[in-house]
């Protein structure tokens, strides 16, 4: 990229396959893609993309047949003005928290898209991100970056890394393209962590003591008919020793069982997966993917930054890995060090923020487990063992008994990965109890009741206007979305 006085070269091994588990994304990706000039229409057409409006968590609280809640992507109504949690707690427990504060759960129930064909690219009536084919998304982005943004793409294997006296990486050697030198290196070598780990010796902080899942079995399931209805929520169904993701793309579903090998044999995990997808799919090829939960102790060392799997990996709950890639890339672009002299200062900031973000993501993923009331298997029992819960999350859980997470408190960092609203959806979706003092809600009673009416009005209106996911995707493929 020839702006700002530097150029970008991507060195990619022609032989190493991408992992491609993550087919879900977070709404930040819309801003990221729009910013780099990607056409949303092309994304839908070339990456087999579909809409994602949130997550539906089935069986995580009690494991009963009707146990499910939504973590939608829309903020609760009037979120910046009033915290609706106490109002819901006091007077609306007959309705789910999600339905009390946003239309999105009901849009998902109805299989409705978050926008219409007249909505501009990247704009919607409801907040959304994408489910997409990761195997198509990577080359799609590579093409955009080389053709539109001037990135040089070199297909070569790095066989040697040359460091200077300070430890800084000076160049890498490849059989295909010779020696390639650079001032700043981004390690995107995935689990290999070639630069940050093998070369610079930065250690790995394992967090499997908090998040137990360490293996995924992934399968691609065809639709029965090409016009079968599509869900725009990632469905995560709890199992005996993990959970199963279920993601709809226009042409197929991506399904995978994420489990803890300490709590389940591979045999049992495969059986659970097969039970979920049905016996008619018993011959589909299943890919086994190891998940080493954790992250680097430092993300930026010397002149090298680890982004993506080289920086860390967690079970694919809540699409957190891709969010961190986006946020890290954005932070780097905004903080790009002008020269070597200031690099260590920028690196320190980058490390502080990124450490904080990993910590919050781990807390947030763990939150899904610690609120369970399931005691039927060791996996769920072990998950609520206080020794496995990070201290900060334990403190918050104590605090949240008396005050609910909201706009201003606690979540003070710029660009928090998961906003307080996400914590609200999970906490109150899973039946967490926060004590409410009736007098405290008096001041905002009228506002809350107005927002509740507004939510019902908006829900009715959207239900009447929005097409189904399948209808809209077909139209996008036929006519495209307009840029404005």
């Amino acid at each position, binding site marked *: 990229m020839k702006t700002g006085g530097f150029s970008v070269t991507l060195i990619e091994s022609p032989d190493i396959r991408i992992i491609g588990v993550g087919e879900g994304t977070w709404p930040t990706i819309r801003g990221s893609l729009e910013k780099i000039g990607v056409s949303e229409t092309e994304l839908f057409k070339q990456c087999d993309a579909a809409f994602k409006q949130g997550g539906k968590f089935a069986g995580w609280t009690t494991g009963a047949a009707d146990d499910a809640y939504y973590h939608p992507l829309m903020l609760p109504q009037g979120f910046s003005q009033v915290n609706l949690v106490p109002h819901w707690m006091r007077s609306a427990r007959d309705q789910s928290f999600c339905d009390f504060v946003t239309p999105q759960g009901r849009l998902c129930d109805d299989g409705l898209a978050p926008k*219409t*064909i*007249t*909505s*501009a690219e990247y704009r919607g009536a409801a907040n959304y991100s994408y489910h997409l084919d990761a195997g198509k998304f990577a080359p799609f982005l590579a093409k955009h970056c080389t053709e539109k943004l001037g990135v040089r793409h070199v297909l070569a294997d790095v066989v040697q890394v040359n460091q200077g006296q300070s430890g800084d990486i000076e160049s890498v050697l490849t059989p295909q393209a010779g020696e390639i030198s650079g001032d700043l290196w981004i390690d995107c070598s995935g689990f290999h962590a070639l630069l940050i780990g093998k070369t610079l010796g930065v250690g790995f902080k394992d967090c499997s003591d908090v998040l137990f899942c360490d293996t995924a079995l992934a399968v691609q399931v065809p639709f029965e008919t090409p016009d079968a209805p599509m869900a725009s929520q990632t469905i995560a169904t709890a199992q005996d020793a993990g959970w199963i993701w279920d993601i709809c793309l226009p042409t197929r579903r991506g399904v995978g069982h994420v489990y803890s090998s300490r709590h389940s044999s591979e045999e049992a995990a495969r059986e659970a997966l097969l039970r979920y997808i049905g016996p008619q799919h018993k011959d589909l090829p299943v890919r086994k993917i190891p998940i080493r939960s954790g992250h680097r102790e430092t993300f930026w060392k010397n002149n090298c930054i680890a982004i993506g799997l080289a920086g860390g990996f967690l079970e694919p709950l809540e699409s957190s890995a891709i969010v961190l890639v986006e946020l890290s890339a954005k932070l780097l672009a905004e903080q790009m060090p002008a020269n070597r002299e200031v690099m260590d200062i920028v690196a320190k900031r980058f490390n502080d923020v990124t450490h904080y973000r990993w910590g919050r993501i781990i807390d947030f993923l763990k939150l899904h487990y610690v609120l369970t009331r399931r005691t039927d298997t060791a996996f769920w029992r072990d998950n609520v063992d206080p020794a496995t819960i990070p201290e900060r999350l334990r403190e918050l859980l104590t605090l949240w008994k008396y005050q609910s997470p909201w706009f201003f408190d606690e979540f003070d960092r710029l660009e928090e990965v998961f906003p307080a609203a996400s914590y609200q959806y999970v906490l109150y979706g899973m039946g967490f109890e926060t004590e409410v003092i009736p007098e405290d809600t008096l001041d905002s009673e009228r506002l809350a009741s107005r927002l509740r009416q507004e939510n019902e009005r908006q829900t009715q209106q959207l239900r009447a206007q929005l097409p189904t996911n399948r209808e809209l995707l077909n*139209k996008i493929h*036929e*006519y*495209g*979305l*307009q*840029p*404005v």
Partner: protein
Amino acid sequence: MTQIVTLNKEKHRSLVVDARASAAYGDSRRFVRVIVKEFPHLLVHYPILFSKNPQTGEFYCGAMLGIDEGENLFLEEWADRQFYRPLDLQRGPFYSHGPDLAIDLDDPRVGAEGGKPLFTEQGQPTKYLQSIIWAFQDLNPGVEMTKLFIARLLELKLIEPVDVEVEFDDGTSRQCVGLYTIDEEALASLPDAVVVELFRRGYMRLIHYMIASLKQVPVLARKKNSLFLKETGSLAGARAPAMG
């Protein structure tokens, strides 16, 4: 129902068509599709804006005829042919079918009392039918030219949404959504070479017609407001509409 057939001078020799504008004939429309060639005629009476086809999301150019859904404030002026009536309404029950003209025999205008004949007794097209033929000679290529014009504006990011908000003396206000116009800021920052290109292609003229026609929005609002005045006998005038 529709029953569209190719026009035939033998079969349809005695057919009459009512060419007048009327709510009963579908002229009661807030927004009607237009082609670029019509812009000079339109801009003296109507705001010319972009909107999107609700089925496909594709942009088209249209003239704004009213504020509320299904409202055309110009039916009187059209009745005595004072004002220009867009081709898409002038063409009435006629369609083009390849090189031929087709007609919807189930259209209420066809065979209506006071209708005009299409053919002379000798089987020659009447003046009325000739005007329809000319309308289609403009419309068919005009639709394509308008598409090209829009496509170039989109490429140059010159189209932006516009909120048309109008307040009336009866205390009500209207917000017309789904309308788009020229982004004047983007226009002003175009590189010189593109400005010349737009000028040479005749697009610059069209762009300025569209911008100038925005001045018809308050005129339209006052027109509607005067209807309220007639109804209520109030003396106050319409407030200037807010455009943002």
